[in-house]
């Protein structure tokens, strides 16, 4: 008893104007909130992971309402993979840069050789840069996992 792909395909409802217009309204504000969570990791609960998941959720909401092909038009597959790699490279890149600049691995105060501000505030900025990298990486990965799960790897037609 293998469920044929065609059976699942025709159970998906056609486009729904109410759903699309509300989602078109909500997605920008969700993304704004996601950015807020990333940026305010220093002062309020939050940070790279939580903000990245909220940003990822906004793109997934878009994909649910407008269909997977539309979301791939909004954030292309190549762009998504590039975003994930960029996020990971930012974090590991900064860590290796600190080691190359003569400090210890992941020691942000070693970055003072590039921009000479005092080491302690370099730590605060280092944490922020790293949180941005984490946010980008987590957002891209959440979207990519949703795409794979929804279309069982074919990325043609989502849930």
């Amino acid at each position, binding site marked *: 008893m293998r469920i044929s792909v065609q059976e699942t395909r025709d159970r998906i409802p056609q486009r729904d104007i109410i759903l699309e217009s509300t989602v078109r309204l909500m997605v920008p504000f969700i993304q704004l909130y996601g950015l807020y969570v990333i940026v305010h990791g220093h002062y309020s*609960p939050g940070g790279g992971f939580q903000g990245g998941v909220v940003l990822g959720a906004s793109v997934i909401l878009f994909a649910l309402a407008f269909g997977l092909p539309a979301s791939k038009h909004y954030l292309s597959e190549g762009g998504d993979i590039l975003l994930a790699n960029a996020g990971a490279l930012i*974090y*590991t890149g900064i860590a290796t840069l600190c080691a190359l600049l003569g400090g210890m691995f992941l020691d942000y105060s070693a970055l003072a050789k590039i921009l000479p501000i005092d080491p302690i505030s370099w*730590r605060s900025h280092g*944490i922020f840069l790293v949180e941005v990298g*984490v946010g980008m990486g987590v957002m891209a990965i959440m979207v990519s*996992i949703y795409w794979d799960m929804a279309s069982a790897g*074919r990325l043609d037609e989502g849930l």
Partner: protein
Amino acid sequence: MKPLALLATLITGALLLYGTADFAAWGDPQSPPNSNISVRYVEQAVKETHVPNIVTAVLGDYRGYDTMFELVVIYSAGMAVMGILRRRED
């Protein structure tokens, strides 16, 4: 197989409960975890990193190595899902 699994579960549970005997009471500020290395985190973290949120300070700087590999974990999970499901062959 099921009774064997039940037996293993009960033994593990009993061992765990037997182990909770020596823990400090819940919420006790003088318990080992609350009075050992985290005292410095609470007192010094803001001075040393200018980040009011101590959890982010510990996450990003004191134990930044953990968080770096945490990102690598979520990254490799995304790549694993991509590798498992995206198959052109079948």
